[in-house]
């Protein structure tokens, strides 16, 4: 029978069980994942099964690491996610968290644009560190993503997005994430991008400030190819700041919508 062990194809005799395979290939593996699911009990194996064997604490060689990182994805998902190219406009509270989530699930390519520098008031919600204050956000984010998943290709643009450069920066992507702070800029980006690329979906956010209930944040389809995350109302203003929990919830709504679109599912 033909199996994949740590993503490498292998042929074995019929009737082999999961634990027989471990005893044969990696006796000291203490994490055994069968088709995306960790197993504590022995299972019969079938043709085409995908098995991951991990020795806890052992740093795997670079060529094996990617497969081990993807071990908890449902088989078949990783290959599709790996092919996806996602644009992220803005690397603040929304964009930096969307980027981290998409790198963790192994999206093949991220194109990230922002003009800003990391500053202390960003750290209440954005995916940066105190020793990165003063760096360009896109540079700091690329460094952080590289440490999380070196197999995600990250292309950065340290610039202010405007009508003239949006079609160039985001000319070759499958989904765009709108992750700006300013309301007028959100509208400008969406209008410009969807006029140039009406068939590429955009996942935007509006209404993510404050600490209203998490459950008021939803993902809705609002235009033919525009999905909007948020409560639609909670604007950032004096007395209603932006904070990690609610902005993070919205960012992960966006990341999940992106994943669903990549996998050909309805985003909302």
């Amino acid at each position, binding site marked *: 029978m033909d199996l994949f062990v740590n993503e490498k194809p292998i042929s074995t005799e019929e009737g082999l069980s999961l634990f027989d395979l471990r005893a044969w290939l990696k006796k000291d593996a203490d994490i055994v994942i069968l088709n995306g699911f960790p197993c504590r009990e022995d299972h019969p194996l079938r043709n085409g099964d995908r098995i991951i064997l991990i020795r806890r604490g052992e740093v795997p060689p670079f060529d094996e690491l990617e497969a081990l990182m993807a071990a908890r994805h449902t088989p078949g998902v990783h290959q599709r996610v790996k092919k996806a190219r996602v644009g992220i406009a*803005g690397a*603040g*509270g*929304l*964009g930096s968290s969307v980027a981290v989530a998409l790198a963790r699930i192994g999206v093949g390519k991220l194109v990230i644009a922002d003009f800003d520098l990391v500053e202390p008031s960003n750290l209440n919600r954005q995916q940066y560190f105190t020793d990165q204050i003063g760096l360009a956000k896109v540079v700091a984010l690329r460094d952080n993503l590289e440490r999380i998943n070196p197999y995600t290709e990250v292309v950065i643009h340290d610039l202010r997005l405007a009508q003239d450069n949006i079609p160039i920066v985001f000319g070759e992507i499958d989904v765009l994430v709108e*992750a*700006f*702070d*300013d*309301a*007028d800029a*959100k*509208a400008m980006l*969406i*209008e410009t991008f*969807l*006029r140039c690329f*009406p068939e590429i979906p955009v996942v*935007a*956010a*509006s*209404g*993510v*400030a404050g600490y209203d209930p998490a459950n008021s944040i939803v993902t809705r389809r*609002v*235009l*033919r190819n*525009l999905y*909007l995350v948020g409560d*639609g*109302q*909670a*604007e*950032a*203003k004096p007395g209603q700041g*932006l904070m990690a929990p609610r*902005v993070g919830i919205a960012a992960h709504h966006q990341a999940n919508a992106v994943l669903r679109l990549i996998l050909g599912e309805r985003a909302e």
Partner: protein
Amino acid sequence: MQIRVNGKARQITPSTTISSLLQELRLSNAAVAVELNGEILPKEKFAQTLLSDLDRIEVVQFVGGG
């Protein structure tokens, strides 16, 4: 004339433009995206685009924060 705004029927007078509709809806021109019959309409066309009977308009308004 009858149009649909975000899925809801609405009566308008014959000379209504996108801009005047947005004013009626008390929405700013800047922080909105407008789709007219399934196509994104650029902001610079809001003032000159007259609405016709049975037009379908989707309007999305954005608030700041991210």
